[in-house]
């Protein structure tokens, strides 16, 4: 008798459609996992044989057996160091201003709109900007400084947006409690809001910097060289970076250089993995102590 409530023909059809749809969505989603695995396995398999201490400590060369990424590694370190130096203070300050101090005004709306738009500008346009302003107009040449300043502009919107989220997540009750005790705005921000938002800001900053490490196009535009056999010793020196070196090797037709590129990719991915792990760790730690 329960067959009276069993599915009639058209409902069975609807159920089949429902199951098929669910299967499609599931397959496509897990396919992404497969893609990621394939990508990582491919790069690792090609590159791992070339990955040894010599690779990390040699300069690039015309001969694949003797090539290494020392200049690229150091270049990236110099670049990120200066980028962090510029972008973090400016980005966090801007975020504090916008979240804690800014009222509604034409200028402030314009600032917010600008930031939103800048976040969507392709990185190569930042490269063009850097080329015209830092390399040519400010005559900084193809230096680490010019590269760092360009990269800072690139990741500034990301840092600002992430920092604002972190500041916004601090409950207002903390601010009011401080005000009620007679604190000024700056004191409240400095002693209560910022420390509370610190982990979020740190996470966002690390993620922004990890994005900067992987960017190639802007560096090509400002002229980071693709064949560099020395290590930068000052901010005005020329340089190369990990992604540039990888790009250079991939662009050569010989198979050996492609495999070298894979080795470089492995190094790059390891660096990124470490940075992301640190960010996740910080986020995790802060959530454990949250009330």
């Amino acid at each position: 008798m329960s067959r009276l409530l069993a599915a009639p023909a058209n409902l069975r059809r609807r159920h089949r459609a429902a199951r098929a749809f669910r299967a499609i969505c599931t397959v496509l989603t897990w396919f992404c996992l497969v893609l990621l695995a394939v990508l990582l396995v491919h790069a690792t398999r090609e590159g791992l044989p070339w990955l040894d201490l010599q690779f990390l400590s040699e300069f690039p060369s015309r001969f694949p057996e003797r090539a290494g990424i020392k200049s690229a590694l150091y270049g990236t370190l110099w670049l990120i160091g200066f980028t962090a130096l510029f972008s973090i203070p400016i980005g966090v300050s801007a975020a504090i201003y916008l979240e804690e101090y800014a009222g509604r005004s034409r200028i402030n709306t314009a600032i917010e709109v600008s930031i939103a738009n800048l976040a969507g500008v392709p990185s190569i346009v930042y490269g063009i900007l850097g080329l015209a302003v830092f390399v040519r107009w400010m005559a900084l040449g193809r230096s680490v400084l010019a590269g760092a300043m360009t990269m800072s502009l690139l990741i500034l919107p990301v840092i600002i947006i992430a920092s604002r989220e972190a500041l916004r997540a601090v409950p207002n009750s903390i601010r009011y409690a401080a005000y009620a005790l007679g604190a000024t705005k700056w004191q409240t921000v400095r002693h209560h809001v910022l420390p509370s938002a610190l982990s979020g800001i740190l996470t966002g900053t690390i993620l922004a910097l990890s994005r900067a490490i992987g960017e190639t196009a802007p560096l090509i535009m400002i002229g980071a060289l693709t064949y560099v056999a020395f290590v930068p010793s000052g901010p005005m020196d020329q340089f190369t970076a990990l992604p540039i070196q990888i790009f250079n090797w991939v662009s050569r037709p010989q198979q050996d250089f492609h495999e070298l590129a894979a080795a470089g990719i492995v190094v790059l991915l390891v660096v990124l993995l470490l940075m992301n792990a640190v960010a996740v760790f910080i986020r995790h730690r802060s959530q454990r102590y949250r009330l």
Partner: protein
Amino acid sequence: MSDPKVVDVPVETKEAVAPDVPVLEVRDLTIRYGDKPAIRNVSLVIPERKITAIIGPSGCGKSTLLRQLNRMNDFIPDCNMDGQILYRGIDLYDPEVDPVEVRRRIGMVFQKPNPFPKTIYRNISWGPVINGFKGDLNALVESSLQRAALWEEVKDRLTESALSLSGGQQQRLCIARALALQPEVILMDEPASALDPVSTSRIEDLCFELKERYTIVIVTHNMQQAARISDFTAFLDTGKLVEFGETDQVFTRPREKRTEDYVSGRFG
């Protein structure tokens, strides 16, 4: 209220079974979330074409019991049950039974009105169309809105968004939406608790009209409401059915002491 001509309806299960088999019967039902029981060994028979109220203090399991009656608890992952729920003698949880079919015959109105962000017309017509309705959609929409006492207020604005209606109107729209599927039973989970007193009394009047054709089971924490509109009352406390009987009797001459304490406001 005039009744428009009879429209195409899905299969009336009633015709296939002896008409004196109760429309809804609960047998020794226990419902657990994980291993914590929310309903324990409840047995009762829902009388046909009457309003049955389920009352009890907060957390006694009223909503859980209600949702079990149309298999809405299927969506809660660790909810499991022992016992049976029979709809016209058919075990609702029999493996051959399709929950979608169940929900066509046993409709539900929720505590907070949840109309779709579509036009008023589409809100009513969506359910029947999804279920393969092939007849005169306009007539069905009109009759559903009439039966929900909403037709006069919206007949000139069927193409407006349902969200433009007031809270009370939206709830009546949700009732009309459930009616459009021609169910036998309508489950209502505190349908007026989110509404103002005027809308509440309109919903209560509506229930009186609806019980001529539909069996209604209404969960409410408002005892006066239960006393006002229901024919039968079930009093639940910490998952157990304490007392079930005609409303008059339960409120004026309760058999159990706990019932008496509750209806006289001594707790809950």
